[in-house]
C-alpha cells in the first residue's frame, strides 16, 4: 500500500470575531485527523479558537494568467472609495 496521506490546508480563527486565516498545510489520513493534527501543529502557541481544514486538492483557485482581467478593472472604480469625494470643511465629519 504505502500511499501518502493527503495534504490539507489549515485555516485558523485567531480570536473571536476575526476571520479564519490560512496558516499552512499538513498531511492527515482524513478530515477528522487533519483537525487534530492542525491543533497540535498550528496552535502550539495559543494561536487559535477555531480550525477549518480542507483538502488541498479541493481548493479551486483563480488562474494566475487571469490576474489582469480579474483584478485590473477594479482599479478604474475610484468612486468606490470615500476619498474620491470632497466634503467641505464646514460640513464636518461624514
Amino acid at each position, binding site marked *: 500500500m504505502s*500511499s501518502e*496521506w493527503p495534504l490539507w490546508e489549515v485555516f485558523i480563527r485567531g480570536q473571536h470575531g476575526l476571520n479564519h486565516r490560512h496558516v499552512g498545510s499538513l498531511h492527515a*489520513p482524513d478530515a477528522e485527523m487533519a483537525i487534530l493534527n492542525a491543533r497540535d*501543529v498550528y496552535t502550539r502557541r495559543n494561536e487559535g479558537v477555531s480550525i477549518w481544514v480542507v483538502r488541498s486538492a479541493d481548493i479551486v483557485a483563480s488562474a494566475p*494568467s487571469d490576474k489582469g482581467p480579474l483584478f485590473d478593472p477594479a482599479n478604474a472604480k475610484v468612486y468606490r472609495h470615500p476619498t474620491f469625494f470632497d466634503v467641505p470643511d464646514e460640513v464636518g465629519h461624514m
Partner: protein
Amino acid sequence: MYAQMVKTDTKRVRSLDEMEPQERAFQERIDAGQKIEPKEWMPEDYRKTLIRQISQHAHSEIVGQLPEGNWISRAPTLERKAILLAKVQDEAGHGLYLYCAAETLGISRDQMYEQLHSGKAKYSSIFNYPTLSWADIGAIGWLVDGAAIMNQVPLQRCSYGPYARAMVRICKEESFHQRQGFDIMTVLAKGTPEQKAMAQDALDRWWWPSLMMFGPSDDASVHSAQSMAWKIKQNSNDELRQKFVDQTVPQAKYLGLTVPDPALKWNEEKGGHDFGEPDWNEFFAVIAGEGPCNRERLEARRKAWNDGAWFRDGLTAHAEKQAARRQASRIAAE
C-alpha cells in the same frame, strides 16, 4: 547554513535583454520585489533550485532533531527538559512547514524523504557532529541557531511566497531557541569549575563547524549569483559569516569563554573581526558522508520511517474503510 551550496543549472547569469519575453517578465517581477506564487509560470531551473534548497532546509530541521533530541532524556531539571523538548518539537514543526512549502512546487513529502534516505539529498553539515555533554545543547542553541537565524531572517523576504511565509513563521517561533542556548551557557559559565570547563569544551568543538555552516566563500559562484538574482538568497556566505563572528565574539567574552581561534582579532579599519579560515577539507568530508555522525543520523531517520510504515498504512486503511462505510450508508439512505 541549513541549505548549503545549493546548485542551480545555471552556467552564467543572463541579463534581461538575453531572456525570452516570459522569463524576462518573471525576472522583472522579482526585481520589483513581487512574490512568485505556486502555479504561476516560473523557469524550470528556478523551480528545481527551490525544491533543492527548501527540501535541504527541511531535511536539516528534522535531522537536526536528533543531536539535541538525545539529551531530552538527560536534561538536568524539569524545566530544562520541557524547554528542550519544546525546542526539538519546534524543529519538527519547521521541517513540516518547509516540506509543505516545497510540495507547492510539485514534489511530494514522500519523494523528498526518499531522496534523504537514499543519500541523494543533503542536509546541513552541522548535524553530523555529536552532542557529548549538556553544554553542547547550550552551544547548539547559541551558535547553531544563532547562525541559522542570520540566514533565515533575510529569507523571510525571498521571492517565493510559500517559502517566505514559512520563514516568517519559523523565525517567529525560533526567537526563543537561541536565547535558551545562551541561557544554558550562562548558567554553566557561572557555575562550578567543571561546568565552566564543560562550556569551554563545547565552544571549542562547535565554533568551527558553526562557521562552516555558512558554506565556503561563494563570491565567485555562479549558483550563488543566480540564486541572488532570483532573490532566494540575499547575502553572500562571507557576509553572513562575518556578521555572525562580529555578533558572537562579544557574547563569548561576556560568558568568559575563549573563542578557539588564535587569528581572531578586532580590525578597527573594517569595523569587524579578522578571523581564521575553517578547515574546508573537513567540511567537504562531512558533506560527503564522512562526518562523525553521518551514518547514525541517516540510519535513525530511515529506521523511524521504515518502522512507522505499518502505522501510516493502518491509518490510511481505516480512513478508506470509513469513507466506504459512509458512502454505503448514503446509498442505502437514498
